[in-house]
């Protein structure tokens, strides 16, 4: 896997190098404007938020969400970096302001110029590790991941990289297993010496890798998952962890609201995987639904993460309870199995990084018709109109059309890219994490805007709905705030 990605990277780097030797004056202005995204850090606005230039092909709702006070990114200033070290101004040993909330602050050590931990960073490159489940029990197509990884950074590299540095992506398959994820992340940190690690998908894998990354002082970013695990430190206490979207717990008000909006007055069930990491979520979800539904909360149950032979029993109990809506937070394979044997019509509602993937709709329709899942990235109906994404994806993958996994990875990569860019030329792990704490708001137009007043920077989610006439998830609402 690593080899293939590396080889691909080499090819891309070569291509990029050739492009760069071509005088830049020949470039079209459109290209130059896109450089903004990665080439030059967006300016830090007064309220500490950063947003890129709008690049969506049309003025869709996602392009510039209602980010309060967000300022459009800096004007194009050619290739050179003029704001190097910008983020380190005022760098002192004080804790970046604006932190607090549920979690601990990002690390207190602010970068000194030229100091700090610069593992994985050279004058010309930044090494980044991404892990995701390519094989194993995850319902995620292997090809999709291979195609998705590095799309954004390829594009940025072609445009000169981030603050003059090319981003080199290492990708590892975590096989949807926490032990493998930890081993892969260890490899990233100790062998590949990456600067930071990105978790692609899978809560348990993200949890395992995040804990390792904290012990190895490697910044770790992922979409939001759970917040706590019994007997273990909460994720918010990990010194290097940052969630780029709402955690499951933070989404419980959204689930309750969706129930009220679509199923008010009808019976509802809450089904959660029996992972201990979801204990906290389950409690909060049941609480929120009870508050919204009262006695209409007809059934609640924890089920095996990969429900197989128990599926008929669970489906039978759901139907007997009379529930019309099911708040669901368990694996896609469980969802598909239970939905397949349901003998009544129910609407699923849930947080859904993987449950909201189109592969689930393809296989699960019509059993999961109108299932609503909250996702950190919008559906393909929106993403297909994001020209920059579509072009970048096609450019990296020989013209093939993007899928939603491509969007997911692209969204994470571009958000990380923005933070890297905002950190400036003087890049160290400390300065990088300090930037997150200081800037707080990043908005790449795909993920909802972030606000890192705590480790969990998410502020909103996109609501997707399974449209069985198209066999895919369509975007019902964007940037729904709790």
């Amino acid at each position, binding site marked *: 896997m690593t080899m293939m990605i590396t080889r691909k990277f080499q090819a891309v780097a070569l291509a990029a190098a050739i492009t760069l030797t071509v005088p830049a004056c020949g470039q079209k202005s459109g290209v130059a404007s896109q450089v903004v995204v990665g080439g030059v850090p967006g300016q830090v606005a007064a309220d500490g938020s950063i947003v890129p230039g709008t690049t969506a092909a049309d003025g869709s709702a996602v392009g510039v969400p209602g980010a309060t006070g967000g300022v459009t990114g800096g004007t194009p200033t050619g290739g050179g970096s003029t704001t190097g070290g910008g983020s380190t101004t005022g760098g002192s040993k004080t804790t970046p302001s604006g932190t607090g909330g549920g979690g601990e602050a990002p690390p207190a050590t602010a970068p000194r110029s030229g100091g700090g931990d610069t593992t994985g960073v050279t004058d010309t490159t930044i090494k980044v590790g991404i892990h995701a489940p390519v094989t194993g029990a995850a*319902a995620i197509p*292997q090809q999709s991941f291979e195609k998705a990884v590095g799309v954004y950074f390829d594009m940025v590299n072609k445009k000169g990289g981030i603050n003059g540095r090319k981003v080199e992506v290492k990708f590892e398959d975590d096989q949807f297993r926490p032990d493998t994820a930890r081993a892969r992340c260890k490899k990233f940190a100790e062998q590949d010496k990456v600067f930071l690690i990105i978790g692609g998908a899978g809560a348990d894998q993200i949890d395992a890798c995040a804990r390792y990354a904290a012990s190895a002082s490697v910044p770790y970013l992922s979409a939001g998952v759970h917040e706590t695990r019994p007997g273990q430190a909460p994720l918010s206490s990990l010194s290097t962890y940052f969630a780029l979207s709402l955690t499951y717990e933070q989404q419980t008000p959204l689930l309750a609201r969706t129930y009220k909006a679509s199923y008010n007055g009808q019976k509802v069930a809450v089904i959660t995987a*029996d992972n201990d990491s979801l204990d906290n979520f389950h409690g909060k979800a049941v609480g929120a639904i009870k508050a919204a539904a009262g006695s209409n909360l007809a*059934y609640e149950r924890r089920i095996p993460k990969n429900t*197989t032979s128990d599926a008929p029993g669970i489906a039978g109990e759901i*139907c*007997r309870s009379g529930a019309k809506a099911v708040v669901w937070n368990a694996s896609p394979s469980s969802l598909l199995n239970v939905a*397949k044997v349901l003998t009544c019509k129910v609407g699923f509602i849930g947080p859904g990084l993987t449950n909201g993937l189109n592969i689930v709709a393809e*296989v699960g329709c019509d059993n999961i018709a109108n299932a609503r899942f909250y996702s950190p990235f919008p559906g393909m109906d929106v993403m297909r109109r994001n020209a920059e994404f579509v072009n970048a994806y096609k450019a990296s993958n020989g013209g093939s059309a993007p899928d939603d996994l491509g969007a997911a990875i692209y969204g994470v990569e571009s958000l990380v890219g923005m933070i890297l860019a905002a950190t400036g030329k003087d890049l160290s792990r400390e300065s990088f994490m300090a930037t997150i704490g200081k800037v707080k708001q990043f908005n790449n137009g795909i993920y909802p805007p972030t606000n890192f007043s705590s480790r969990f920077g998410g502020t909103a989610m996109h609501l997707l709905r399974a449209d069985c006439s198209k066999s895919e998830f369509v975007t019902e609402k964007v940037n729904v705030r709790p």
Partner: protein
Amino acid sequence: MNLPLYEQLAIALTAGVLRGAVYALVALGIVLVFRGSGVFNFAQAEFGTTGLFAAYWALTVQGWSYPVSFAFGMAVAIALGLLTERLVIHPLRDSSRVTLLVGTAGVALAAIGLQFWLFNETLVMSMPKIHDGYFTTPWGAIVTMQELITLGVLAGGAALLALFFRSPSGLAIQAAQQERVASELVGISVRRVSMLTWGIAAALGGLAGILAGPYLTFSAGFLSFGAVGSLLPGFMAAVLAGMRSMPGAVAGGLLVGAIEQLSSLEVFAESIPGAGAMILFVFLLVVLLVRPQGIFVGRAVTA
């Protein structure tokens, strides 16, 4: 959701008997092979999964009709059974039974490996049902048409087998299974009988796999230890049948299914994870220690 216990029990037993039909089909194959070759066939369930994969491929990738796909799946299952006989069982015919057991386990693993490999790109596989209907029994159990069809196929298959074993060629098979040398002397080809045995066993496995496939989504190893894991229950049913009795295998399969489904009673489901596996383990120990010669042995038992 607090149903009274007797209602829970009625629902569990209904579900158990329906699931038991799959186990019974697998158990029939196991018994048949044991009588024929004295082998514990750990590949029996994988004959089924392989047949299911083939049927699925024919239906969804090739777009063949359901009956044709079904027949194709059966053909592949039978081919795998015959191949196993030819490549593994026959060369090892003089080896000990444990060696043969390792051989069949190897066939199972090979089949699982092939399924993983060839269907690596298809992540979630779902076989359509023959009939989508279902109904609810008066006591609240849900019965799908697919499950009823399986039960019907089991009944029909068992009846056909019973008829077959009363026919001259069936009797010849039984003779060959019991006395190899003597059968050769009176002109029964033990080799051909062995092939026939494995072919029929694989066909039973194929039926189990292709019929149970639509119950849930499936993946590699589906019928061995996947969503409808039937290898262990099938063996338990065969043990109940004293490893010999065909009617016993059917009864044993239904019983094992019912016992396993006791795990869905609230007492178990809410306190013990994976209670089904625990119940099966304890049940197996009790049966083997108390009545190792089986329960449903009938008159088919031989010395």
